[in-house]
């Protein structure tokens, strides 16, 4: 026997009655089914209260047509709902939790009041009871479909749907149960509720389930796809993990992942240009896949490190305070007015146009004049980082521009390395010894410099190793050289040449007083109170112990003095000392150079020339001798081709002007000439000895001696013009050292006299010659009378005005 066969209709509630209405959203309550509800809306609470107060606890549950409506009217509710009994009720912070159980379907036949809660007259709908084969078939189908859906969506449910459904005897109730368990949209659920026959309800349910199966299948497919996407990455990850485990097992493991991670972390932190970042990421990806033992691993790693360390966008702020820059430059270097002005100019430009390209300067001058230290001082004045590299002896272009990464042991070039050391994109980069660049079959570094030093190209400098464009346009390049002769023209073209000539004796004294003495005393641990070196001692050192344009040897000698004093103090017999010139032989040894005093009287045929060398100026005596019986011109003293030719030109000129000079034609014809230029071991060349040669020859032929206190320099032409020459300052200083009072210069070199220290200019006389006759009439007093008609003697103006002005400006000259 079976309870379902018991017909419980005797206690039937009335077929139609008035009930409070509880509207619900998004779902539908079916007969026989339990449903938990949370009631919060005021009218709904009132309806529940009314039902709970009634003796049979009955309420009508109706779905809203639109879930978004907060306070529905009758029009916004479906007309068919479910009569339900409240099984449980609990009030919870204003809301009411309910468990209701549906009993039968009901239709609203007459809406009643809407306040304080919805209430309507309702009429029970008959429970469908039709039977048939189709219903049986649909019923089984639905149970199958339900099982299918459950299997697909949630395989490990604690209880099978089929088992639950078997509890329902009425096939329509199974459909109700299914609708509740599946998340159908409420419109479909309502359709099921409204089905007036089992057949209709089951057909609807069958359709819905078929649709639902499709959706679940589709969803599964999408999920599978997404999973396979993900699992590809996961697979790679797992393989890598395994690889690492294997490597660790082999003893090559560890480290590299951490390294890659660290590099990646660093890369994320810094700012890189987009294309650089792309390249770096690509290389990092490669690195992550390489085993540490692979030769490529280290190469790739150092490459990435280089990228990360290069200052792609880092710059230092320029210090644009002109006054401060002047002060810094003056603190570090004495004199060098022209260069300091050039630096200040650059600062002014940067102040007005911050995007200005950095200049490319070339300092040319003898050793020891402070080219390199001037670079440091400029960096300090500008507030830029200083990096220096020596190009001396470099003969391989790859050293400057790097090796391509395909070579084992490849490295970035020296330029990129210097930038990396500097850590900023705008350092002051000093290229020392530019004139000592080598060149051979392996390449020509000067060609690479062409690109680096060209402002039009160097904003995209491409190092072979880095293989990414790097902007060098903000880098301040300063090159140094001792001579321009060995520097290729196109390279010279790209640079602004600034000459640093040698220092005069007075300048050296000033430099010693300001910098050298203090530095050397400090190095030796001697204080200024313990030793003092007066000016005349310094002068004696300069003239008797050194012969140089710079101050290196001079500084070493001061150091030697300081050490001698230090020895005395260390031995406990020290006392404050003033070093006099007479003490020098004892401290420094015998004098190394005898002061080249101008020769008091010179025999005919000797003239005083001036030469320029890389280490400063020199006084040369040119000796000419008549060789009776000979006819040739003999030249000795390691003279170069140019010098030989200028000797011939001088001879030709003298011969053709013999009458004017009072030289007998006979002496020209019967004698050969030998010209010798000591010192014979030193090679000499250049056209600037022309005037001196002509003077020596004129003196020899005429038998009149030239003045001993007058030196001369200048190139000559066959027609007797005197052409300008270089190195005026060094030459004049050398002449002054030798005690010469008058210097004959080509007229066009008059402008160079401004470079000379004022005390030199006021002490010496300068003759500006435009023709050989001008020079001869000054150099050989005896000829002055004969040449009176053709010669004009012009002395350079005295510098007083200039000097005073400079002093007033406070220039340290």
């Amino acid at each position, binding site marked *: 026997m*079976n309870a379902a066969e018991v017909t*419980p209709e005797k206690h039937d509630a009335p077929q139609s009655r008035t009930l409070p209405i509880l509207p619900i959203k998004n779902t539908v309550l079916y007969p026989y089914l339990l449903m938990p509800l949370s009631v919060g809306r005021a009218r709904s609470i009132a309806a529940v209260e009314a039902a709970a107060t009634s*003796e049979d606890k009955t309420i009508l549950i109706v779905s809203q047509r639109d879930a978004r409506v907060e306070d529905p009217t009758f029009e916004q509710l479906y007309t068919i709902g479910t009569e339900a009994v409240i*099984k*449980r009720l609990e009030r919870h912070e204003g809301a009411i939790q309910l468990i209701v159980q549906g009993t039968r379907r009901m239709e609203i036949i007459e809406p009643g009041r809407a306040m304080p809660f919805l209430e309507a007259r309702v009429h029970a709908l008959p429970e469908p009871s039709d039977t048939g084969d189709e219903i049986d078939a649909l019923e089984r189908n639905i149970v199958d479909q339900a099982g299918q859906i459950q299997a697909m969506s949630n395989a490990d449910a604690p*209880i099978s749907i089929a088992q*639950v459904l078997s*509890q*329902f005897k009425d096939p329509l109730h199974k459909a109700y149960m299914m609708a509740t368990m599946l998340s159908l949209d409420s419109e479909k659920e309502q359709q099921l509720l409204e089905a007036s026959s089992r057949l209709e309800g089951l057909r609807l349910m069958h359709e819905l389930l078929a649709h639902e199966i499709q959706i679940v299948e589709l969803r599964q497919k999408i999920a599978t796809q997404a999973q396979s996407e993900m699992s590809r990455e996961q697979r790679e990850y797992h393989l890598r993990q395994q690889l690492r485990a294997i490597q660790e097992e082999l003893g090559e493991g560890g480290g590299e992942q951490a390294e890659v991670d660290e590099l990646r972390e660093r890369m994320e932190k810094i700012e890189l240009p987009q294309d650089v970042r792309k390249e770096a990421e690509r290389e990092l990806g490669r690195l992550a896949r390489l085993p540490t033992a692979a030769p490529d691993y280290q190469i790739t790693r150092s490459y990435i490190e280089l990228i990360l360390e290069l200052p792609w966008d880092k710059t230092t702020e320029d210090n644009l305070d002109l006054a401060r820059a002047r002060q810094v430059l003056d603190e570090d270097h004495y004199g060098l007015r022209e260069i300091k002005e050039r630096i200040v100019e650059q600062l002014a430009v940067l102040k007005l146009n911050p995007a200005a390209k950095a200049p490319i300067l070339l300092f040319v001058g003898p050793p020891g004049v402070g080219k390199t230290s001037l670079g440091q001082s400029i960096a300090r004045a500008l507030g830029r980082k200083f990096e220096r590299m020596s190009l001396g002896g470099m003969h391989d272009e790859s050293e400057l521009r790097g090796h391509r990464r395909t070579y084992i042991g490849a490295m970035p070039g020296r330029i990129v390395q210097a930038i990396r050391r500097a850590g900023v994109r705008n350092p002051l980069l000093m290229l020392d010894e530019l004139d000592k660049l080598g060149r051979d079959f392996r390449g020509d570094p000067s060609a690479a410099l062409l690109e680096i030093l060209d402002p039009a190209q160097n904003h995209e400098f491409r190092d072979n190793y880095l293989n990414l464009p790097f902007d060098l346009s903000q880098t301040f390049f300063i090159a140094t050289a001792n001579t321009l002769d060995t520097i290729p023209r196109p390279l010279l073209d790209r640079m602004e040449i600034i000459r640093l000539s040698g220092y005069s004796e007075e300048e050296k004294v000033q430099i010693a007083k300001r910098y050298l003495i203090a530095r050397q005393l400090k190095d030796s641990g001697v204080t200024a109170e313990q030793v003092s070196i007066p000016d005349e001692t310094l002068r004696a050192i300069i003239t008797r112990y050194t012969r140089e344009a710079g101050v290196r040897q001079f500084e070493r000698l001061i150091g030697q003095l300081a050490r001698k004093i230090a020895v005395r103090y260390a031995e406990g017999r020290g006392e404050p000392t003033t070093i006099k010139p007479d003490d020098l032989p004892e401290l420094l040894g015998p004098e190394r150079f005898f002061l080249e005093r101008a020769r008091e009287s010179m025999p005919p045929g000797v003239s005083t020339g001036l030469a320029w060398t890389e280490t400063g100026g020199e006084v040369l005596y040119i000796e000419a001798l008549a060789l009776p019986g000979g006819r040739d011109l003999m030249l000795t003293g390691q003279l170069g081709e140019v010098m030989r030719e200028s000797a011939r030109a001088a001879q030709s000129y003298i011969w053709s002007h013999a009458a004017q000079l009072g030289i007998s034609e006979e002496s020209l014809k019967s004698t050969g000439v030998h010209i010798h230029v000591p010192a014979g071991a030193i090679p000499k060349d250049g056209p600037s000895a022309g005037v001196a040669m002509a003077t020596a020859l004129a003196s020899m032929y005429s038998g009149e001696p030239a003045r001993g206190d007058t030196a001369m320099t200048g190139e000559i032409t066959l027609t007797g013009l005197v052409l300008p020459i270089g190195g005026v300052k060094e030459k004049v200083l050398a002449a002054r050292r030798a005690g010469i009072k008058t210097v004959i210069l080509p007229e066009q070199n008059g402008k160079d006299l401004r470079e000379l220290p004022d005390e030199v200019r006021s002490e010496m006389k300068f003759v500006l010659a435009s023709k050989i006759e001008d020079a001869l009439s000054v150099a050989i007093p005896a000829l002055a009378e004969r040449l009176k008609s053709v010669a004009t003697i012009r002395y350079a103006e005295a510098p007083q005005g200039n000097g005073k002005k400079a002093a007033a400006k406070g220039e340290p000259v």
Partner: protein
Amino acid sequence: MATPRRTVGELLVSAARAYHSPYWQPAVDVYETARGWVLKYELAGVAPEDIEVHVAGRVITVRGVRRDLRIEEKRQSFCMEISYNRFERALEIPCDLDTMELATQYRDGMLIVVLHCQENKS
């Protein structure tokens, strides 16, 4: 329709059981006596005239309605655990009930049904 002998399977689907009837089920005690069976239903608050006992074959069904008492001055419900409205409890007893002598007694909210066998139970 539960029998006194329950199975594990039935326990598993107990959640679903409630669904096959929209009525509440009163708690029941079942005793076997020397002369038959005694059934005790907890039916507090149910008026005796609202209780109906029905016997068919081996199944005895008790059904009826529990109507709530009207309590004056009520303003708000806070908790409702007692089931109201219609109830129904069907029990299968292992003997032919039609031949048994049946007596009911309603006392202090309990319905007592006494079944006396006319002969030995089958």
